[in-house]
């Protein structure tokens, strides 16, 4: 089977989620990549070095600069003429593009797979991760998105794929990119951080969130996350949200501060290796999944902890 993997990239570098998708695809067969964007020569060269990669298809042009699904989907469909599976990481781009490709191919997509059981059988989370379904696809071609935290990352070095330009049809004329407000941070990215410190509604306001959570995160070189309640209350922007409808994370250590542990939050972080919870309510559901719990007032214990590290 020949697979085509969507390469998620930013600032000229291949993102980690791509490496997990490569691992998932390699369980199905030969791995080819698609790099789409504007001025992506360096990305294509980096992608070609990923261990186990065959051909790297590169679509370089203004129409692909912002990964607009209207322009990218026809390109993928064209390449799927000689591939058997399209595999994308379940990132915002992957989730936006893959179903458009699937419908154009008349294929039912398999979303956010957790494992590859065989060439046509996969497991995937449903009901916010409360039920894991094993599904078998009868479609001749497969369209799959991959939950990055469920697969090891392929090595960035060791491969020697052949880079090949694909022309593509260009701008479909349906949509245009207006702009982006991307949060800039010196901290590691949430989805690839080894340590995450997350804050919840108990922080009460934005000032507290910054003055309590961030110093601890800085001490640990950690990324900062938040519960949906904290995001909805406006303490931090939407891209901080960890949970079923936010980001799915699985760091080495996840520190939940003032987070009660709603199902939808747990769905986003329960695959973390070690979970540490700080909460003043000893009955909080977060303690049922935490490896280490501390019952106490976060306004007192978190600054104290930061001071002692």
């Amino acid at each position, binding site marked *: 089977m020949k697979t085509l993997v969507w390469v998620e990239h930013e600032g000229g570098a291949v993102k980690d989620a791509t490496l997990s998708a490569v691992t998932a695809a390699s369980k199905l067969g030969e791995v080819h990549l698609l790099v789409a964007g504007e001025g992506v020569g360096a990305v294509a060269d980096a992608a070609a070095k990923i261990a186990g990669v065959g051909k790297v298809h590169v679509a370089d042009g203004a129409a692909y600069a912002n990964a*607009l*699904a*209207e322009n990218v989907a026809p390109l993928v469909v064209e390449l799927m003429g000689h591939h058997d599976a399209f595999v994308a990481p379940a*990132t915002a*781009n992957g989730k936006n593009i*893959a*179903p*458009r*490709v*699937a*419908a*154009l191919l*008349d*294929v*039912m*997509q*398999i*979303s956010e797979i957790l494992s590859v059981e065989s060439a046509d059988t996969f497991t995937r*989370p*449903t*009901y*916010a*991760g*409360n*039920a*894991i*379904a*094993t*599904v*078998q*696809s009868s479609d001749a071609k497969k369209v799959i998105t991959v939950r990055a935290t469920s697969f090891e990352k392929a090595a960035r070095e060791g491969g020697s794929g052949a880079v090949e330009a694909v022309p593509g049809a260009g701008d479909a*004329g*349906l*949509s245009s990119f*207006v*702009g*982006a*407000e*991307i*949060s800039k941070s010196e901290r590691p990215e949430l989805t690839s951080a080894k340590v995450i410190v997350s804050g919840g509604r108990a922080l009460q306001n934005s000032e507290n969130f910054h003055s309590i959570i961030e110093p601890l995160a800085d001490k*640990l070189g950690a990324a900062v996350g938040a519960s*949906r309640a904290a995001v*909805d209350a406006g303490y931090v922007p*939407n*891209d901080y949200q960890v949970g*079923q*409808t936010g980001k799915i994370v699985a760091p*080495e*250590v996840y520190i939940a501060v003032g987070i009660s542990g709603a199902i939808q939050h747990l769905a986003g972080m*329960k695959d973390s290796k070690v*979970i*540490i919870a700080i909460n003043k309510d000893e009955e909080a559901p977060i*303690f049922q999944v935490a490896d*280490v719990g*501390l*019952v106490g007032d976060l306004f007192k*214990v978190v600054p104290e*902890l930061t001071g*002692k*590290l």
Partner: protein
Amino acid sequence: MKVLVPVKRVIDYNVKPRVKMDGTGVDLANVKMSMNPFDEIAVEEAIRLKEKGIATEIVAVSIGEPKAQETLRTALAMGADRAILIVSETEVEPLGVAKLLAKIVEEEAPGLVILGKQAIDDDSNQTGQMLAALTGRPQGTFASKVEVEGDSVKVTREVDGGLETVSLKTPAIVTTDLRLNEPRYASLPNIMKAKSKPLAQKTPADYGVDVSPRLKTLKVSEPPKRSAGIKVADVDELAAKLKALGVAA
């Protein structure tokens, strides 16, 4: 412009789903069902467009068992003008739903279709994008802001690093994210009024669409459980733990 809003009847957001003992699915017997929360946001957005004088008519549509009527009545009580129910006793996958919706789009010619970004039961996150593909329309997924400007619509999207704005030519497809709006509750008089609003009943066969499933669910199981660990007594003990884990010096 006409706005089409597809809605799905799903397990209520506050109910904890239980996997059936025989591993065939999730137990939905005697479980409270409601409108998918992302679809409620879609209905609300359509109503706000109507209040601004941009939308002229709101058509709600649902595909599912006969009881999905209740979900459509909720949409009507919130402010939709009429409803279409496509009855199917068996579950229809996102691809099948998108094909049926494409037929309705052909008939109704809406300027905008607003859908929830995903249903909280199957968590597929596909239908809007698939509908956009099948109708050849642009898509603004995971929207946190929707602004109609002449013959285009500006959609602010929630993406991995923050927010991104795209401009789409109408007719277009929009899928909603959590922060687009806060849906209203239907008032009692509006619930009464909704009972007399038109609700058409159809079947997939009426549209000539084959909705046979492409995916077969072999098994449904509970996720591996995490067990509760230990509680530490004070900050010193916690600091020692963090050091032992090698994440702090």
